[in-house]
């Protein structure tokens, strides 16, 4: 009952070269020795072939007790345990209720698999106990990820060093350890399949038809004949530095050199991980009082030490601490990917590049202003197509600016640079108008009638006028009510 496809290929794979099992090179295998020599220099896969690649050894840790928990709890616990498993391996991957770590590379360092196992046990068991998840876990090690998982799940705690032995070791296992649906389990049972060994003997094509390609793939992964991509654990970056001052400090400016040192650490930390930050929290610890916290949010993520120090300095200028400071702590609340700018090679792009750098400078300046003056201190203006002069200028906070910039039609009639917040009523003595001094009308009127629909009913005649001292004024006379004169702006 040797299956023609799978097992026929396998001896070739293991006897010929281990590599060909992973990356198929049918042409290179088939061609003659002379041809093979010629391809020697060309193919980049050749060096691996000539020198046997070091097999990896995967150590699977299986937690059967996790099955009672919800999925999110499972992932959370696995995430925490993966952090512990990082003590013995650089590559830790997640699987259902299990972790797998690569330990071949750490065997020599720890001095054998026994030491690695006892180290893991000493780390993981207390962690499980604190979560009241018992104090045991199942484990196994083999040259493939899925193989280790299957072995661990079976509870054999086996260790298989060589890939050649893996197939027979897996063969002994019951089919119950396979991660299958109930229906598939039942079907296997009905087929008389009790051990994985029995599956090896079935024709692959038939298995494909009955159980789908996923099933066949997972088995060949376990036997080490197909590659196994895994999702690896990447620890989330964390930066939190505390500094206890040797004595109490009242003048917070004395803290700046210490903060600068912490910022150097932060910069190095960020550079190593190719990150930047956009949210920092600086807390100052006082004795017997709650800590003073400075929340530093950045418009654009940065890892520029000088800029961060400048911002903290600006915050300090406005800050009064309630008590002497005895400690400092800097935490990063938000990490961002680092985006660098490159200067343009071509002259046409240089302008664009410059403007990008300009806007970055502007952003940094803006952050500084906001830190000192408050968030709504900075305005930009925009024109609105509007007849009524006081509504034709829109004052925006700088933040909203970019979305709203629009070039709208502007009247051709003269408009003053300055507009008064509230028009000032002028006095009319005899036939002469007075503000501070006598006013002469120069040109006009320009009639503006608008807002009749809203009840405001703006009916005005605008004139350009000149005060005796030389001021150019923009005045208007109401055309309704008491027909008063008002000063509305200056032609500055």
């Amino acid at each position, binding site marked *: 009952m040797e299956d023609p496809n799978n097992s026929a290929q396998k001896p070739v794979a293991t006897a010929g070269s281990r590599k060909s099992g992973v990356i198929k090179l049918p042409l290179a295998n088939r061609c003659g020795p002379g041809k093979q020599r010629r391809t020697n220099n060309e193919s980049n896969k050749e060096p691996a072939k000539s020198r046997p690649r070091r097999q990896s050894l995967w150590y699977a840790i299986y937690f059967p007790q996790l099955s009672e928990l919800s999925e999110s709890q499972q992932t959370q616990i696995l995430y925490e345990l993966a952090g512990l498993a990082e003590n013995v391996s650089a590559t830790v991957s997640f699987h259902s209720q299990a972790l797998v770590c690569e330990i071949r590379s750490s065997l020599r360092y720890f001095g054998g698999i026994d030491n690695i196992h006892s180290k893991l046990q000493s780390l993981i068991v207390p962690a499980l106990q604190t979560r009241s998840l018992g104090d045991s876990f199942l484990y196994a090690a083999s040259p493939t990820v899925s193989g280790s998982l299957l072995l661990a799940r079976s509870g054999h705690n086996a260790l298989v060093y060589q890939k050649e032995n893996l197939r027979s070791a897996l063969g002994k296992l019951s089919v119950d350890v396979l991660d299958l649906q109930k229906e598939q389990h039942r079907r296997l049972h009905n087929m008389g399949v009790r051990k994985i060994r029995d599956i090896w003997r079935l024709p692959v094509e038939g298995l494909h038809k009955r159980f789908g390609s996923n099933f066949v793939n997972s088995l060949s992964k376990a036997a080490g004949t197909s590659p196994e991509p895994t999702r690896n654990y990447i620890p989330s970056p964390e930066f939190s530095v505390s500094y206890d001052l040797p004595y109490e400090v009242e003048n917070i400016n004395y803290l700046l050199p210490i903060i600068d040192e912490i910022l150097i650490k932060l910069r190095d930390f960020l550079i190593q991980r190719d990150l930047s930050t956009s949210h920092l929290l600086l807390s100052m610890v006082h004795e017997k009082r709650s800590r003073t916290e400075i929340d530093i949010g950045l418009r654009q993520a940065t890892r520029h030490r000088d800029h961060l120090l400048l911002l903290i300095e600006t915050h300090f200028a406005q800050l009064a601490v309630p008590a002497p400071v005895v400690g400092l702590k800097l935490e990063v609340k938000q990490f961002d990917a680092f985006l660098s700018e490159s200067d343009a090679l071509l002259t046409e792009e240089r*302008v664009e590049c*410059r*403007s990008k750098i*300009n806007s970055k*400078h*502007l952003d*940094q*300046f803006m952050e*500084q*202003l906001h830190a*000192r*003056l408050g968030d*709504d*201190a*900075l*305005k*930009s*203006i*925009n*024109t*609105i197509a509007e007849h009524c*002069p006081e509504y*034709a*200028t*829109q*004052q925006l906070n*700088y933040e909203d*600016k970019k979305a709203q*910039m629009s070039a709208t039609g*502007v*009247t*051709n009639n*003269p*408009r*003053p*640079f*300055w*507009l*008064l*917040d509230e028009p000032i009523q002028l006095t009319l003595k005899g036939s002469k108008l007075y503000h*501070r001094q006598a006013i*002469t009308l*120069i*040109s006009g009127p320009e009639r503006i009638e608008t807002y009749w629909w809203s009840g405001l009913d703006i009916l005005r005649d605008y004139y*350009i006028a*000149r*005060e*005796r*001292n*030389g*001021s*150019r*004024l923009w005045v208007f006379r109401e055309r309704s009510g008491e027909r008063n004169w008002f000063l509305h*702006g*200056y*032609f*500055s």
Partner: protein
Amino acid sequence: MTILRDSVTQPKANIGKALSDTACNSRGAPWTRVNQLLHSNPNLWRGCDMAGQGFHGIGTGYHELDDILPGRGWPSSGLVEVIARHSGMGELQLLIPLMQSVIKQGKWILCVAPPYLLNAPALTQAGIDIGQILIVKQDTPCKDALWSMEKAMQTETCGLVLAWQNWLPGKVLRRLQLAAEVGDTLAVLFKHNDSKYSPSSLRLQIKGSVTDNRDFSRAEVTVIKARGNFRPLSAQFSLYPKTVSA
């Protein structure tokens, strides 16, 4: 050489008056010939003209004003005080060409605590991209206003800082002047009153035309103090490219 120099600079009152009156108003043919003659001799310099000293200013956009300023224009960095006794003298209009050139360079302009609302349609009419203008709000305390001026001058991309502050002690003006020089930025301070002994690089006074109050567009600008200039000069010219007619 010294004899030559003395002979030109000694009757400075006369030449100064002649310069301000003749050179700026009626650019007559005889005077240009004299000018050419004076320029042709490199060993000769004139008190009102720093062109020979290798110092070039940014053109003000008004010929008559260029003529009376050292370097024929605004200084490229430093503090400029524009004194207008009242609002509405045309003090902002005087700076419009400068603002245009700053914006053309892709830099932005910061207005620190302006006294009134800046009217956007008027600026658009004057050909200024209002997207490049930032305003520090009106009721900012003086200390913060000065701080933001100083910071803006240190920022590379800020081309011009406009500020409205009336009572600033000499010490503060000195600090602003230094900040502007270090940051290589021009800062313009609008004031109602002149303060003597101010350390700024240029002090101008702008007045409405004395002769005819009804002439809307004309203004008289007096250079009270300018680095490289040693006596006050004044010029009368029209501020608006097209006159607002009555």
